[in-house]
């Protein structure tokens, strides 16, 4: 079994992260036109609400919870020091997990049953939705069956994830973990691997910059102030405004 663990928890993460990094950068630079959330709300707007809104909000919060437990395990452990706070965290996360699960179920249902949405559905969309569905299901199973996940993630899994980034993978803990948890981890890396090949790229271009840009945007061919200023040195490319 060692070879399998080596593959799933050492090889797969590195392959996934490399492909993710190179793939997304290549795709962003080479095929900018294909960076899109590919919204289908225009074709079907009512059912989408019941799927998209619960799914997105809860999956975002859950993602940041995982990220916090990975990056700041001590903070999570400190929070969990009191049983009541642990319970609040676990219960609210579990509810969010169920919300995401139900939301995704609605989304899959909508995508497969609405003929207009089916017209813009690729096989990759279905594969991705299937994987996410399984992943959230596994996550719920882990949360329910192996309590308390927030604590042992912070104390046991965070060192493993960090060891990957330190290029010194330590897989003893994950190799000893129950199968469900192992699957959840491996599938997470598969999702990372798939990002550049699916519509998931849209989460990398979430328009946060909108918050601090002025509302109006005007673009000029050239920066007319600079081009008219005799002190501007001559360059191969004329100074642009934007």
């Amino acid at each position, binding site marked *: 079994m060692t070879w399998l663990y080596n593959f799933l928890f050492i090889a797969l993460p590195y392959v996934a992260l490399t492909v993710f990094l190179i793939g997304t950068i290549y795709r962003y630079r*080479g*095929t*900018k*036109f*294909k*960076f*899109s*959330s*590919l*919204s*289908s*709300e*225009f*074709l*079907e*707007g009512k059912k*989408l*609400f019941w799927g*998209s*809104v619960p*799914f*997105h*909000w809860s999956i975002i919060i859950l993602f940041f919870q995982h990220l916090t437990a990975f990056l700041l395990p001590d903070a999570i452990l400190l929070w969990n020091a009191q049983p009541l706070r642990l319970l609040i965290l676990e219960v609210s996360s579990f509810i969010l997990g169920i919300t995401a699960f139900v939301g995704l179920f609605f989304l899959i249902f909508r995508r497969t049953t609405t*003929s*207009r949405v*089916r*017209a*813009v559905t*690729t096989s*990759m969309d279905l594969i991705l939705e299937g994987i996410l569905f399984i992943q959230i299901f596994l996550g719920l199973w882990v949360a329910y069956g192996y309590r308390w996940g927030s604590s042992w993630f912070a104390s046991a899994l965070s060192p493993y994830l960090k060891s990957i980034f330190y290029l010194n993978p330590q897989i003893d803990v994950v190799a000893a973990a129950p199968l469900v948890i192992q699957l959840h981890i491996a599938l997470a890396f598969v999702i990372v691997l798939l990002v550049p*090949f*699916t*519509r998931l*790229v*849209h989460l990398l*271009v979430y*328009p946060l*910059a*909108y*918050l601090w*840009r002025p*509302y*109006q*945007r*005007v*673009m*000029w*061919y*050239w920066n*007319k*102030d600079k081009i*008219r200023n005799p002190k501007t040195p001559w360059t*191969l*490319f*004329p100074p*642009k*405004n*934007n």
Partner: protein
Amino acid sequence: MDIRSQVSMVFHLDKCIGCHTCSIACKNIWTDRKGAEYMWWNNVETKPGTGYPTKWEDQGIYKGGWEKNGDSISLKGAGKFKGLFNIFHNPHLPVLDDYYEPWTYKYTDLIESPEGDDQPTARPVSLITGKPIDIKSGPNWDDDLSGSPDYARQDPNLESLSPGEREAMFQLERMAFYYLPRICNHCLNPACVASCPSGAIYKRGEDGVVLINQKVCRAWRMCVTACPYKKSYYNWSTGKSEKCILCYPRLEAGLAPACMHSCVGRIRYLGVMLYDADKVQEIAASDGDLVQNQLDMILNPFDEEIIKAAKANGVADSTIKAAQNSPVYKFVKEWGIALPLHPEFRTLPMLFYVPPLLPVMASISEKNNKAQSEQLDPIAKFWDDQWLYDTSTEEIWGSVDQVRFPMKYMASLFTNGDEEKVKDVIRKLMAVRIHRRGKTVGDIDSVKVEKVLSDTRMSADTADEIYYLTSLAKFDDRFVIPPAHREQAFEMLEHTSDMKGATGFGFKEAPSRGM
């Protein structure tokens, strides 16, 4: 003062015959593609009518445009917080059914069906799903008041009318309509630009054309909501929003946009106007007469000071010259007979409309009710000569008040409810006709003509100029397009030496749907 030039247009609605040639020219060039079949960057609507998409003027439904918020303005249905909060599901987004489901016919069935007892038919099939559909609506389903109970009576502009006035409009013998061609307004304070979370939409500094960068658009769909004119469309196939580009590749080559060039009624005029960009936000948030405020922002291109300031700001000499010859400036500023569409949306639209004189001006009256009834054919019930369809100028301004088309309705479209303003324009248009009739036919005496002209604060020369530009203008009078200075524009796209020996400029990536 930050003087910029803006390519602007005037539509003379009196001359529009509603032939949709402009729409077809635009469709053939730009939107005859998968995902864009339902888009009509240029469309022609019958007024009263609900338009395309259905009831686009009703911002209670679509939440487009800006709304006054204290001293400033904010986007009604989008904006930084509303936009990012609603990004996963935009509650005010018009969906396909608000436009129409595009379709084609299975023509091959006509020739490839097996022999049988029945005549083969070409069934309509959806261009989205490919399945047979029942056609329920199209982009101009309400043309010429067809289906009035469903369309014309649902016109959001009728809300300003009393129920009685509304009924009067739809009496058969009083019924009137006119056409309203619409393209993107290339606004000075565009709501679509402000609403785009990705920052993909921008206004070109040199000519004011509003464009969507297809490589930056991420399908957050906020521009579709924010544009109160619903002139930003979502391409469901490529996952990118698209809008009228004012045929900028043609403009840069000195050609009129396709819709304008193909207009058979010659209703369209295009030219540049100079405006003060520093005032945009102030004017967009201003109180009072929105139309007048907007016109105040447009500057006189003959003023020495303004020419100096424009030059200092980098406006090319050729552009200033074009602004002086601009037919749009004449219609909008000098003569004051063109009005913006729905100024209350506060986007400062730069398309202007000369309101239609007919059918507005014609009034009908019954000469003698009793005699009329006796003469009425009991079977055919046609109206005979006792009904007077009055286009005369007996009472000079009286007929403005007795119009078939309520002034309130026109005011709700063009002047934010200011009836006097519309009446003033109508009077001016009438004065030109009276003046010309006096001159050419000679059956109106000169005292009356002079009174008419002085009432409308016009000189005989001005009236002649309006007449010339309305009726006799040649192509070069109607379209005054300044050189685009492509030597500058070119380098915006690519550096020429980089592309030496390559296949060409522009899109090197096929515009197909992402994974």
